[in-house]
């Protein structure tokens, strides 16, 4: 019974947090004329960084500059520009920094490759340790000091 009450409490808490988050992020924007344009617009503004707050997207940021950028993106969409053209425009003015997901080019290669390299290193290290311990256990069952000598 107590467990049940606890789980209800957690569910209510989670729901209130989710609702709170969505209302906090509500930023006035003009509706696009078609659902397709609306979807493209929302997708675009979620993937550009706000240059003044840096860790928020254009969709989330309340600052004036973000509002102007959203309007500019909307104008470009209404003028018939493709998503690619809009991205290229934003990058031409603000650099790759404005993209939350930077492209894989020579300049950003290290950014994409480092996590994989570190993971590989971790896996290799883990394998080496596991192998060593396995050898240790089979060769010397009496030795409870698990270090190799």
């Amino acid at each position, binding site marked *: 019974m107590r467990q049940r009450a606890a789980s209800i409490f957690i569910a209510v808490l989670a729901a209130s947090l989710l609702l709170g988050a969505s209302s906090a992020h509500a930023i006035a924007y003009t509706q696009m004329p078609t659902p397709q344009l609306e979807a493209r617009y929302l997708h675009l503004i979620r993937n550009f960084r706000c240059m003044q707050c840096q860790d928020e997207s254009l969709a989330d940021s309340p600052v004036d500059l973000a509002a102007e950028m959203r309007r500019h993106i909307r104008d470009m969409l209404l003028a018939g520009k493709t998503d690619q053209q809009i991205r290229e425009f934003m990058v031409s003015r603000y650099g790759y920094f404005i993209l939350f997901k930077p492209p894989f080019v020579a300049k950003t290669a290290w950014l994409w490759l480092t996590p994989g390299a570190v993971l590989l290193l971790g896996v290799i290290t883990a394998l080496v340790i596991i192998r060593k311990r396995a050898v240790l256990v089979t060769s010397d069952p009496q030795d409870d000091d698990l*270090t190799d000598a």
Partner: protein
Amino acid sequence: MSRFVNRFTVPLAIFAVLVVVFAIGIKDSPQKDLIPSPLIGKPAPAFALPSLTDPGRKVTSAQYRGHWYLFNIWGTWCIDCRIEQPMLLKIKQAGIIPIVGLDWKDDPKDARTYLKQAGDPYQSIGMDQDGAEAIMWGAYGAPETFLVNPEGIVVYKRIGPITERAWEQDILPRLPLTSTPDSASSS
């Protein structure tokens, strides 16, 4: 001895590497504010803006073809621009390079009053009341200043107020030695 090496060297080495990585990250983090402009080496945006000081006239990039100029983004609401103001007046007095202003998201009346009181360092000022022009220049704060050469190429961008040092070390050396004949007479 070999036991000690096995157990401690590898974690210690990883720790040392992490210390270096984080030290660099902490040391360089203030530079997050200074994002290099992709416009450097590229043509400056073409503009044709309503003039702040000369209503009915336009301030255009075509007027500055063949001339070096500084393109300074400012607004009366911007504190750092007020800090920069005396330096801009000094640059105007030096007479080496004209300053074109972009009055960003400002009330033109406020801007005119401000310039009357504080002094007007600009050769001409374009108005950008809705902020559309500033996006063309990739501006994300004020003041920002671009140095544009006679071919219309951006050669340098300064984020934040132009200091004496920035003027002497970053802007002057980029200008040709004999820019204007009257530059020698003024200090």
